[in-house]
């Protein structure tokens, strides 16, 4: 009887020893890095609920992580460490999603009419991107107006397409891993990326660089 109680008390003390101090750490992480983690997840998951869940999982997992660095050299190192955990949680989340409800084949035709004619020629031909820093990604991103356009264009992409695209293009996750996460073939992945890039290029061209629809008055010379 006594032995039993002793056990329980000892177990409780163990639990308390393990959790109380670190849990305040997690609160601090949440206060310091919550927004950054949320933004990271939101940009890749395109769903605020999913992003919130993944941030929560990340902080709880960070608490349980053994071999956590005793001290961080600075806040940015702490954030880097948390983001490394977040990346795993995010990919796990997407993997679970594919398992639970295998998505149907990408709905609808790719609407190539918007980009190419039947014979495979350009419909709306890419024009030269002009303007301040138009050939310099860094300079472009310094323009708040352009950043807004980019965000809008990314938001316009269907969610699943955007998720695939961001993992590949922004984070350079390997094709093999992405195919595994979304349960798609390599050929399928290439098609998705092709569509995402073509759509995004078109959206940026039209909204960020004033590319014209056919028939619209533009800067084109030599047309009546």
């Amino acid at each position, binding site marked *: 009887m006594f032995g039993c109680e002793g056990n329980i008390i000892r177990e409780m003390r163990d639990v308390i020893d393990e*959790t109380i101090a670190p*849990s305040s750490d*997690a*609160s601090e992480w*949440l206060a310091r890095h*919550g*927004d*950054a983690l*949320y*933004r*990271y997840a*939101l*940009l890749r998951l395109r769903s*605020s609920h999913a992003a*919130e869940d993944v*941030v*929560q999982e990340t*902080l*709880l997992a960070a*608490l349980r992580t053994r071999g956590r660095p005793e001290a961080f050299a600075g806040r940015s190192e702490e*954030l880097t460490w948390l*983001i490394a955990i977040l990346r795993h949680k995010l990919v796990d989340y997407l993997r679970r999603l594919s398992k639970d409800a295998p998505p149907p084949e990408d709905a609808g035709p790719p609407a*190539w009419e918007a*980009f*190419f004619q039947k*014979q*495979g*020629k*350009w419909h709306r*031909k*890419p*024009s*030269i*991107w002009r303007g301040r820093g138009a*050939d310099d*990604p*860094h300079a*472009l*991103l310094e323009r708040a107006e352009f*950043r807004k356009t*980019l965000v809008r264009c990314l938001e316009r992409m269907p969610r699943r397409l955007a998720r695939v695209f*961001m993992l590949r*293009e*922004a*984070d*350079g996750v390997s*094709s093999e891993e992405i195919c595994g996460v979304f349960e798609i073939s390599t*050929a399928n*992945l*290439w098609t998705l*990326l*092709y569509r995402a*890039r*073509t759509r*995004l*290029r078109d959206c*940026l*061209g039209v909204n960020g660089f004033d590319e014209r629809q056919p028939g619209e008055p533009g800067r084109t010379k030599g047309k009546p």
Partner: protein
Amino acid sequence: MNTVDEATDPIRLVRLRCKHATRLISQSMERPLTRGEKISLGVHLFVCKWCRRYRRQLQLMQEMIQEFASIETTHAGTRMPESARRRIEEAIRGS
């Protein structure tokens, strides 16, 4: 349904259309193109300034997205909703 991949069908490659050229351009970011693909794409790009622009703009976009993804995390203004923050705080305390 046509089972031959249009982008690698040799007959198509002889006279590559923009639609297929752009597909190859995108795939070249994922895998090394075959010798045949490289040649036909090269020929096409030589004569098609629109596909040359497409290629340049895709490369620019890739760099841009990478940089954007990193600055978006640390600098941008989107904040976690207060309700979510409270919920996570509770989950942490209850853990």
